[in-house]
């Protein structure tokens, strides 16, 4: 027979369990969207404004992973229950992901209505998923070193810049990879002319190489390099009180696109919500907020930026026409050979 004391104790225990269990029951009713996103200023704006507003409107919670690299984590998670619902990555990684069946190969205006308003580059055949922003890769240079503003990619090869020009470790940086293809276009028959690109790369030695863009910004700011390959936002963000003697130049041969691409994982359990998130990120007000925070060019044609951003970013069909989109599928398929070749060229 159960004594009174025992019964009371059991009752208290049950009550305690129920209290502990309650939030998780509530939690199960709200959907969770698992996304990847950048850190830095972008991450601050996302966490402070963009994501809370999304959670409120779509009555969900968003769990955002900012710890790069994302793709290896997606690779080891189950395809039926992937670690992310939406993958935010640059275009070359999205192409790596699609080859392994980790992301969808096409997203249309049917799933994401705002796609109807994006510039063609955002959903071109060079993109898997949807581009929400782009940067332009061109040349960053010091304005206090007596250099004339570069007008061509060939200006980086100026002998005066020996040892003070900057580039990337091509195997680990997509700006370096895009620049290599651009060398093929400028010095050879086109973006896929690797022989011409290798020759041109050899001619850029001695060159200082870094593995990520933040490092290139640092080298430009410290004067360690006088001219280097960089994306426009990496230069424009030093404005106002942070003004530095650096500027960005768009070479006449065209600028390379550094796209911020969103894509949905095929195994996502909350696909509708995932598409809703992409649609939300393409809304003109959200696009304006983020574009002006980090100097990214919005993919949505209808966005009206403040004058100072509008003057510099790619916000008209004419300006957007200067964007060159590399064929990452082609590049990734040859990647091992290219990595080995450029490593040998740049070593020593």
């Amino acid at each position, binding site marked *: 027979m159960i004594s009174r004391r025992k019964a009371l104790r059991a009752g208290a225990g049950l009550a305690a369990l129920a209290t502990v269990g309650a939030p998780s029951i509530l939690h199960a009713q709200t959907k969770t969207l698992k996304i990847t996103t950048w850190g830095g200023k972008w991450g601050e704006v996302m966490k402070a404004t963009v994501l809370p507003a999304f959670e409120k409107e779509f009555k969900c919670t968003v769990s955002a992973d900012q710890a790069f690299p994302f793709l290896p984590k997606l690779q080891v998670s189950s395809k039926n229950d992937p670690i992310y619902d939406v993958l935010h990555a640059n275009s070359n990684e999205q192409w790596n992901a699609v080859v392994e069946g980790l992301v969808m190969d096409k997203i249309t205006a049917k799933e994401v209505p705002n796609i109807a308003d994006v510039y063609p580059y955002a959903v071109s055949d060079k993109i898997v998923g949807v581009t929400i922003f782009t940067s332009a890769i061109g040349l960053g240079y010091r304005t206090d070193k007596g250099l004339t503003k570069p007008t061509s990619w060939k200006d980086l090869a100026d002998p005066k810049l020996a040892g003070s020009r900057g580039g990337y470790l091509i*195997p680990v940086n997509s700006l370096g990879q895009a620049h290599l293809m651009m060398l093929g276009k400028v010095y050879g028959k086109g973006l896929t002319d690797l022989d011409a690109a290798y020759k041109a790369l050899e001619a850029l030695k001695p060159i200082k190489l870094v593995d990520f863009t933040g490092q290139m910004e640092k080298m430009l700011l410290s004067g360690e390099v006088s001219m280097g390959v960089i994306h426009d936002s990496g230069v424009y963000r030093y404005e106002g009180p942070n003004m530095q003697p650096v500027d960005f130049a768009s070479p006449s041969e065209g600028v390379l696109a550094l796209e911020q691409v969103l894509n949905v994982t095929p195994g996502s359990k909350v696909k509708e919500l995932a598409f809703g998130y992409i649609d939300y990120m393409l809304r003109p007000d959200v696009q304006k907020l983020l574009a002006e925070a980090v100097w990214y060019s919005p993919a949505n044609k209808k966005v009206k930026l403040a004058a100072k951003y509008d003057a510099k970013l790619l916000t008209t069909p004419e300006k957007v026409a200067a964007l060159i989109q590399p064929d990452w599928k082609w590049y990734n398929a040859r990647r091992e050979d290219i*990595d080995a070749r450029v490593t040998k060229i740049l070593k020593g």
Partner: protein
Amino acid sequence: MTTAARPSPIAWLIAPAGLLFVLFFVLPFAVMTAMSFYSGNPVTNPNAFLTTRHYERFIFDTAGIFHEALWSTLRIGLITTVVSLLIGYPLAHWMARMQSRLGHALVLMAVIAPMLTGIVVRTFAWMTILQDKGVINTTLIQWGLIEKPLPLMYNEFGTIVALVHIYVPFMVLTLTGVIGRIDERLEQAARSLGAGRLRAFVEVTLPLSLPGILAGSLLVFALSISAYVTPSLMGGTDVLTLPMLIAQQVGTSFNPNFAGALGVILLLVSLAIVVAYNRILARLAGGQGMA
């Protein structure tokens, strides 16, 4: 239950360490080794098959970079170890023989202090000192001693300087313990029997401190061949080590299987070197194995 069947209290104390070792070394290493023999991830990709192609890729090295990467990893490890030993030994000897407790504590603090700062921070500090617009080059140019900056970093030299700075404390701490336990009277006896200072050191103290040299060198060697942050920040394009290649394979080439193979190869090669080193030192010390 009998008392004899009960595990000893020591076993219980060792259990957490053992569990950690199994969970965070044996198990991951086994998974990595298994992965290195697959074409893809067998858990998520049903088409993944068993293959030795990752090892073949390394062994035949048609790309011509992998053997060089292995060699430069080992070279950087060896030079870092030797330099750390040359810097660390006199310091450790001085510390071990110091009479003043306060002096000993102060030197110990000085040795340990750099370890209180993260490796990334220390490496960045070296960058501001050694880069072309860094402290050394700017000063020398200002004084008119040189016209062009000296190539102090983005090469093996800079990498080794930073690695030595990071790993000398490991060498010193290991050696101090061993040298401190050597009976000073043995050296005094040798000297009273007519040996000079140098001879007494070479024939008495040095052989007795071999176990410390072995342990310290192995520690520094293991740490420096597996270093990733320092070579990638200080080395520029001149330095490509296996840990950098492994990170590249996982993080940007998305080929964890090849990365696994590289990891296994690095471990096997370093094990072989450690065994050989142990043998040689044991022979020098009079035929006993020491580790």
